[in-house]
């Protein structure tokens, strides 16, 4: 099974270890993983800024890079949702591209749900000692229905104690360009989120989206909290030797 990894621009720039963790998880599950070279970004910043024409142009650039693979896997619910929900809507009026967008959308999955829902993975060979809480990133949760899948796999990690995060379904305040367009409101939202993470009693917070993780980790660090933030893929792939997000080398 040939699987293309859409690394996502944030993982590419800020957290390559998530990309490698994703590759490892997919390979362990028997996939042949490739990383299309010319990939950049899925186009959400343009799409959510109202620049529909640019978002369409980027979709037409992404589709040919990925459409020849059996599956397209993304370590992000947000970018995954962009391909699987918004590309077909963006290109709905284009008779040539609409079927291609739909064909791509049908085979695009967020990483964790791909492992569980498509490959039937129910446990991982990983160890992590500590109390962990999990934030349900908005797009993954509400656009893609990802909720039980990460919990299923996390519960199979040896030594890991999962503590549910109060209001885990409430947005952390990242919101792409929102966090820089409305920084005061975003800061208030991520402050609430950080307080809930601290109250959960966990020493590590996990999520499936790099944007939320940068936001939550950045806030926890600013508050002087020792709680560490990681992408769920790193824990599932047993690749937690790298410093957590925002920690010194």
């Amino acid at each position: 099974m040939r699987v293309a990894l859409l690394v996502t621009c944030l993982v590419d720039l800020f957290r390559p270890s998530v990309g490698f963790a994703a590759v490892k998880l997919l390979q362990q599950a028997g996939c042949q993983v490739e990383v299309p070279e010319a990939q950049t970004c899925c186009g959400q910043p343009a799409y959510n800024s109202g620049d529909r024409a640019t978002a369409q142009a980027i979709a037409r650039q992404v589709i040919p890079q990925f459409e020849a693979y059996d599956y397209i896997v993304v370590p992000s619910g947000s970018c995954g949702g962009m391909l699987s929900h918004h590309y077909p809507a963006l290109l709905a009026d284009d008779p040539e591209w609409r079927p291609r967008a739909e064909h791509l959308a049908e085979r695009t999955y967020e990483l964790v749900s791909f492992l569980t829902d498509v490959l039937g993975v129910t446990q991982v060979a990983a160890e992590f000692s500590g109390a962990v809480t999990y934030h349900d990133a908005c797009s993954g949760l509400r656009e893609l229905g990802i909720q039980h899948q990460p919990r299923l796999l996390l519960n199979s990690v040896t030594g890991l104690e999962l503590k549910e995060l109060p209001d885990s379904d409430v947005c952390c305040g990242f919101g792409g360009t929102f966090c820089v367009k409305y920084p005061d409101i975003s800061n208030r939202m991520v402050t609430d989120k950080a307080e809930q993470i601290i109250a959960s009693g966990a020493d590590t917070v996990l999520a499936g989206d790099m944007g939320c993780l940068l936001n939550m980790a950045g806030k926890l660090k600013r508050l002087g909290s020792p709680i560490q933030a990681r992408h769920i893929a790193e824990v599932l792939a047993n690749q937690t030797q790298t410093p957590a997000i925002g920690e010194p080398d």
Partner: protein
Amino acid sequence: MQTTSIHFKANARRALADESLQRSLTRMRVGFQHKRAAAAAKLPEFETLRDEARDLKDHVLEHLDFYLEAFEAKVKEQGGHVHWARDAAEARQIILDICQAVNARTVTKGKSMISEEIGLNEHLQAHGLTPIETDLGEYIIQLRQEHPSHIIAPALHLHKEDVAETFHQHHAQYGLTRKLSQAPELLSEARQVLRSQFLAADVGITGANFCVVETGSTVIVTNEGNGDLTQTLPKVHIALTSIDKLAPTLDDVTLLLRVLVRSATGQEASVYTTFSSGPRRADDLDGPEQFHVVLLDNGRSAMLGTEFQDMLRCIRCGACMNHCPVYGAVGGHAYGWVYPGPMGAVLTPQMTGIEQAGHLPNASTFCGRCEAVCPVRIPLPKLMRHWREHEFQRHLSPRSVRYGVRAWAFAVRRPALYQRLSGLGAWLLKRLARGRGRLSRLPLAGGWTAGRDLPAPSGQTFQQQWRQRGGHR
């Protein structure tokens, strides 16, 4: 009402610094969200009812002209009057004319957001009439000369201490000078004051949650009973509503009520659900002598056939704002006009202009909670995005957004350039972090770093490392 949506950012900053407001919002979030969730969980068919409610509203909107005329005919058949108002000014004039025709002086009012939309109270006052709000929340904010901060809980931003202070200040004129502190005492005093107003009123104005086509009735849901006193005691009852409130049959109204009340307050039914069908008949013991329905358009018909048509399904339950993290952070007044939260972020640009209200559809993370709880499944994030598209096309978006997106897109569409730039960025940010793993300040990213650190990259992008390891591409 004066709009301040254009100052949303400053409004929001003020709201975030207002500790009293913040306490109210925390209480609101917990209360409304848990109650709705519990009510939805208790009704197994709730999700199916939401689908049916959506389909029903869509059907009515597809045949709106037919249903509007049928409703008008039915109201007339029962001896009522129907008035068509194209905009706020026409609606105000129609209502003033009805009041003046009966030499009205005191006008009692049930809760109505349309009344806020058209600025009715100010207009009546300017012509020598005395409008009295009789919904407790509306009454409180009327005394304080404020506007609702929530569409179903207008005084949500206040605490009972604020109410006690307000009553102490305004009720002395009725000889009520005791300083109160308990909610039941405050409620009782408000009832006492309002009772005489109910009896003195010449005209009663209510809104209408729904207009029933088959019976020519208007329907209101209340929890205080003030709506009934408002519409049955005076000689004249005016139901002020809008063209998007029609339900063909009583069965349809039942469906909409079941999703409305659960979504709004988590009740199975509101305490009062009141149907008004024409003026009093010869053998009726009570009821108004005149029954008027004012049907407001005010930009609604212009939404038909556009990407915003779905918004006309809205039944004004408030669930979207109750679950919105942005509303929960800044409250309703920050939005700067009548309708706050996600539904307001879609409606306000339509009614006051995107030039004024551009911030509202932008101030959303698109977290999708509003759409997830909307009883009629309005795709609110999608509609907010459409407003952003309108702005972008008309070059109304801030320059930072337009030029920022353009520069970013230039690189994204050139993969080789993009990867050189991201490699450079990864290297530079790591250097700037100086081994701390994060940046507490960064030029051009002050919005981010004002409140939080920016985690630093590890020095090389994934693509660079993948290439070095000879990975498949």
